[in-house]
Each structure stands twice: as structure tokens, then as C-alpha cells.
């Protein structure tokens, strides 16, 4: 219990430090939110009225304290670039990001785990070599290229999926899933390669252990040894990797979103930073740091669930 409390307090301070750093780094980097929004043809009167409206003349520490005060009241403020509440902007992006996360993780697990076990089993044989070779390729090629190739093949030539754009769940559930399948595959491919590598190494390591020899000498066949003993132990490092993958997808898969023109978290963050939209950036930093820390928290609990021997205190 003490462990969780400590973890929780650490989480709280991490978030405070991250938001503070963001706030003050905006003071240092060049760029002006008002000019970014209105562009090269802005009339001076328009610039002046927007500046006054936003209260950008206040010093940064004052604005930070105000911001924290509003957060405590449950108000994330309004985006400069979009003139919409930050909370609403992030909220409308979450369905995209969550469906990407769920589908890409499902694909990663469904393909990565069996192939990982197989490649361990057939290590040093032609099958294992083949899987190794393929994973090497998927680790090396950049995801935007995979994305473009997927659109080219399945969108432009075969016309199975329509490239680009997102259909929301409420509009049409079937189309909604269809619109995130290709990008999910693009996200999943390198992750599958990572899972295969980790799982293979970890299975191979476990296979050398005494308990495996013991299980074999008990008369279990190799399938049972795998299923009942090895996998359970081998899967722990994979869960660590999985946690990292989940938080990176939830924090926005910018390149894939850009290529598939999905309105996800990643694109929102980039446009927020590009436009020096401080309230929006802060809101998103809050969301991202919270998500990453929360996922890590869940992973910690999962470890314990899978391996009851793990103790934190």
C-alpha cells in the first residue's frame, strides 16, 4: 500500500515539473501565438484586439499560477489557435487515438506472440532465420513509408480502404473501424517486430532454466511446457515493452496520423506547438504525462498479477 502511495505522490510531482518546464520553455523559444494564428495578411487592428482578448501581456509566472488555479477548478482554458475549449479539443481526438491503440495492440499481440514463440522454437533453423530477417526489415523501415505503401496498395490500387480521413463511431461503426485499420497496421508492424524479438530472447533464456528441464523430465510434452511454464515467465519483459508501446500510441502517433490524415492526438500536439498555443500544449502535456504514468502504474500491477513473487515494498 505504501508503495502505491509513494508512486502516486511521485506521479503528482512529475506532472507539476513537466507542466512548469513547458510553461517556461515557451518563454524562451521564439514565435508568437497571435501572429501564427492570423498569418501574414493580418491587419494590425486584428492583431491588437486578439492580443488584448487573450491577456498575453501578463508575465509568465502569473499566467502559470492562474492556469493551475483554473485546472483545480476543472477548467483547462481555451486554445488560442482554435478558439475552442482545450478540454473539448482533446476529447474529440481521443476516440481516434483510442481506437488506433486498441486495434494496433490487438494486431501486435495476435501476430507478435505466436511468431515470437515460433521463432524461439525454430531458432537456428530456416524458419527462425526467416522470421528474424522479416523483423529486421520492419524495425528498419520508417512508418511513414509503410503508411504510404499501405495506402498505395490497399487504397489506390486495390481500393479496399479509402485512404485518409476518419469516420467517427457514431457516424458509421463499420466505416469507423475500416478507417483506422490501415493506420493501425502501420503502427503495429514495427511493434510486432519488437514484440517478436523480446519474446524470442526471453523464451530462449527461460528454456535454459532448470525448471524447464524438470518439466520435461516429468514427462510433459513441449507444448505443455511452453504453455504452462515458459510463457508465463517469458512474458514479463514483453509486458514492459507493451506498456511502452501503449503509452507511445496514446501520446499520439504523429507520423501515421499525418500520412493517414487522422485527427488524432499527435497532430493536435504538433499544431499546438507550431502555433505556440500555450493553453493547448499545457492541456495536452497534462493528458500525455498522466496517461504515460497511469499506464506504467497499471503495468506495475500487472507484473504482480502475473508473477505473485514480485513485491514492491
Amino acid at each position, binding site marked *: 500500500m505504501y508503495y502505491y502511495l509513494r508512486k502516486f505522490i511521485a506521479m503528482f510531482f512529475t506532472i507539476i515539473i513537466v507542466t512548469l518546464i513547458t510553461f517556461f520553455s515557451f518563454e524562451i523559444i*521564439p*514565435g*508568437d*501565438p497571435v*501572429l*501564427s*494564428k*492570423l*498569418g*501574414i*495578411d*493580418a*491587419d*494590425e*487592428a*486584428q*492583431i*491588437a*484586439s*486578439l492580443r*488584448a482578448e487573450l491577456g498575453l501581456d501578463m508575465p509568465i509566472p502569473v499566467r502559470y499560477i492562474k492556469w493551475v488555479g483554473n485546472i483545480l477548478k476543472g477548467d483547462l482554458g481555451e486554445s488560442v*489557435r*482554435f*478558439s*475552442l475549449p482545450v478540454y473539448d*479539443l482533446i476529447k*474529440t481526438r481521443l476516440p481516434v487515438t483510442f481506437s488506433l491503440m486498441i486495434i494496433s495492440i490487438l494486431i501486435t499481440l495476435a501476430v507478435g506472440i505466436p511468431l515470437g514463440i515460433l521463432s524461439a522454437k525454430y531458432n537456428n533453423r530456416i524458419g527462425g532465420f526467416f522470421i528474424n530477417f522479416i523483423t529486421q526489415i520492419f524495425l528498419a523501415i520508417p512508418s511513414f513509408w509503410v503508411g*504510404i505503401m499501405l*495506402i*498505395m496498395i490497399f*487504397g*489506390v490500387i486495390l*481500393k479496399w480502404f*479509402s*485512404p*485518409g*480521413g*476518419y469516420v467517427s463511431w457514431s457516424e458509421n461503426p463499420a466505416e469507423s473501424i475500416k478507417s483506422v485499420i490501415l493506420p493501425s497496421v502501420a503502427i503495429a508492424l514495427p511493434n510486432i517486430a519488437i514484440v517478436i524479438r523480446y519474446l524470442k530472447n526471453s523464451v530462449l533464456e527461460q528454456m535454459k532454466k532448470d525448471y524447464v528441464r524438470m518439466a520435461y523430465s516429468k514427462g510433459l510434452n513441449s507444448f505443455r511446457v511452453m504453455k504452462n511454464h515458459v510463457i508465463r515467465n517469458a512474458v514479463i519483459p514483453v509486458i514492459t515493452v507493451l506498456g511502452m508501446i501503449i503509452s507511445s500510441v496514446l501520446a499520439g502517433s504523429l507520423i501515421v496520423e*499525418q*500520412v*493517414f*490524415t487522422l*485527427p488524432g492526438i499527435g*497532430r*493536435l500536439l504538433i*499544431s499546438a506547438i*507550431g*502555433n*505556440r498555443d500555450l493553453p493547448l500544449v499545457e492541456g495536452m502535456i497534462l493528458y500525455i504525462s498522466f496517461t504515460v504514468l497511469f499506464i506504467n502504474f497499471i503495468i506495475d500491477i500487472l507484473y504482480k498479477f502475473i508473477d505473485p513473487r514480485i513485491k514492491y515494498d
Partner: protein
Amino acid sequence: MKKSIIFLSFILLFLSVFGSSLTVRIPQNIDFLDPHKAAASGTDEVMFNVFEGLLKPDSQGNLNPAVAENYTISQDGLTFKFFIRKNIKFHDGSYVTPDDVKYSLERLSGLDGGPGYNSAMISTIKSVTADKNDNSVTVILKTADTNFLSNFTKAVIPRHNDQYQNSKPIGTGPFKFISYQPDQNILLEKFKDYWKTGYPKVDKVEFKIISDEQAALLSFMAGNIDIYPRIPAQMLDILGNNIKIISGGQNLVQLMAMNNARKPFDDIRVRQAVNYALNKDEIIELAALGYGTKLGSNMSPVMAKYYQEGLENYYSTNTEKAKELLKEAGYPKGFSTTITVPSVYQFHVDTAQIIVEQLKKVGINAKIELVEWGVWLDRVYAGRDYDTTIIGFTGKLSAYDVLKRYESGYSRNFMNYKSEVFDNMFKKAYAEIDDKISTDLYKELQVILTEDAPAVFIMDPNFIIAMDENIDGYEIYPYYVQDMSTVYFK
């Protein structure tokens, strides 16, 4: 139950066949839905379909009556009287009243007690009075201004929507605003009571926001986009058949601006040397694949009335002459400089790369610095902290608006160009009531710019639009506009 489903699907089928819908690619989000607060040209090009002013520009550059049916200008040029078009309606079905026009003009000029959104109107409009009886609005100016008329293209919006101008915008244009989802799309729908009968021709328009050119190209090739404006020339080869391509001058002035207040560009000889060093034909060939018109001053031939011909070859490429001028200016071995380019504009980045090579030939060692758009606006455009940069000035309605960038007192004269001769003539052109004389003065101003060489005026890159071959009626405007009211499916 079953029957009603069949019936419903029939209706849907019916709608999908007969309800024509257009999808147009745009690269950026919009800044404000409120037309008076909006400043970005990327917003204008979309909302041109939603809002109209008393007057409205057409694709030939004329100002035509829109919300106003006609107007009179007093002899002294101080009083404008606009007669509102009879039975013209806003998108919510209410009639446009003189009071709505008064509200719009006062809001723009700050006469309503607000901040005002248009500095020309703030400084020039004295009063606005609405007259219900003859359905007119009278605007009185403080000083006569021959260029003032183009300000009346600013949107007329209803007073009763005051609270919601930026969330539920209402105008009088051919299309109604339906929704805007950042990073996704802007949806417009045909306004059935539009005053110009027969327009618009399609029922729905979706402006799809796709920032990445590659992604836009793929969407276009897969048929998800019907119209792809400003397609990069390099992509035309890949498009294949069943595609219609139209192109024309877009009234954009692409230039290499030099910081006239910073060494060595404070010396006119250096600026002229840079002009002699560059080969514009080569730049047009390499960066725009030939889709561009060579310029010699800050005016595109699209502005036919004001365009001064014969300046584009004033500095024909001459390496020897460039070296000589550099020597005279005290730089016999050339110098090093930086070209600051906004990285979002691949076209300007490509141009910069060619320029670097061309400058090498006369001993100028230029290095490219890529910056974010926001940084460019803040540091280069507003802060004037740069050596040279490459940028495009979008077209304006009047020669006055195009050339005022070079007036020494203009707040965005970021090239730091200062010329008394130019300033005086500009003032004269601005105050001149005789159209012929003022036009001649605007032409002469272009000559002064060419001679003083505050920049290298490179080209007006063509506006290339790729579209589905079944689409017709698209008109190219000399300013940032995508007019969807004339477009239809064959």
C-alpha cells in the same frame, strides 16, 4: 418495420444520387469563423463562399454589388450611399436590414465601442447611418480615399447573431456554414434563398483539411477529393488519366527579400549585384517546372490594369556585372549570408536551394536556415531580424494594398526599404482622384522598386488545380479564393 427500412434506404439512395457533393482539399485550419476577426488567407478562401460584403470581387478583379444593389459616391469622395438589395436574406432566413449593415461596419471600424478589426476603416470612417425608409446605409469618411471602396467587401453579418459570430456564423453567401472540425473538415451546404438565382450549383461542399501534400495526393488519386488546388507541379506527372488540370497566374509575388537595413544589403550596389547574379528563368524551370511567370517588380501581370510591363528583364543574368558591382561596393571576394526560409513552404525551400547555387557563382556564400512558420512571422516578418528570406505575397484587390508594403512607415515593411521618392509618389497616387493618373503613378512606383532593388522579384507561380474530369465551372481568382458557387458536375 421492414418496409420503413426499405423506404428509408430508398430515400438515402435517392439523396446520394441527386444530392451533388464536392470535396476540396485545403492545407490548413482556419483562424476564426467570425469574418471580422479572421485574417488568414487560408480562411478567406473557404469563407468567401459563406460571407459577402456590400460589394464582392469577381474573378476578373472587378468589384460588383452584392449585399448592396447599387451605390453612389459624392463628388468630394467623402460620402458613400449603399442601397441594400431587396429581399436579400441571411442564412437563417431573416432579411438583411440597413441596421445589420450599420452593425457590421461599426464593428469593423470600432465605432460600436469595440476594438475594431480593420485599421483602414478605424482611421477613415467617421459615421455610419442606416435609413429604413429607402433601405440604405450612408457612410461618411473623414478624408477622401480613392482606394477605400475595396474595404466594403468585408462581410455583412446579422446583429441578432452577435453572441455567436465565431461559433455559428451567418452570412448571405451562396453556401451556409454547417460545421468545422479542426484537422478534419469544414462543411458547407447550399443556401437555397441565395439572391443570385441559379447559384450555387452543388448541394454540399466539404473542405477537407489535409496538411501533408503526399497524403493529399494519395487521397486525390483514390477519388476521395474532387478538387486539389495548388497542387505542386512536380506531382502532375503521377496523376494519370481522367484528371483535368487548369492553371493560371495567381497574383502572387514570390521574392527574395533582403534586409535593406543590414550590411551588406544596405548598399544598393549589393542588392543590384544579387539581382544580376540570379537566373529567374532557371528558378522557374527547376522549382516550378516552368509553371510560373517571370516578374521584375512587386506586381503580377494578373493585375493587368496596374502592371508595368518590361521590368522582368531589367536585371538579365550577368555574372560579370554582379562581380563588378560587388567589387565597387567593397566586397571583391563576395560575402557570406543566410537565407531564412519558412519550412512549411516546400516551394520556397526549393527556390532557396537553387538560389544558393546561383549566388556561389559570384562569390556570395549563402546558407539556408529553415524555420517554423510561427518563428518566421515573429522573427523575420514582425521582428525584421534576418539577412534574406524567400516568401510569397498573396494578391490584393487594389494596387494600393499591393504596394503599401514598401512605404517606409508601413508597420510590416520588413525589408526596411526607405525611399523618399517612393513615399511621396505613393502618397500622390493614393490621393489622386483621376483614375488614369493614379494608375500611371502606380506603374511608376513599380519602376522605382525595380531600380532600388529592395528584393529580387522572382515569379508569380502558376495556380495549378487538379480536378475530377467531370467537374466544370471552376474559376481562378486573382486572390486567395475558392469560389464553389460556379462549380458543377457535368
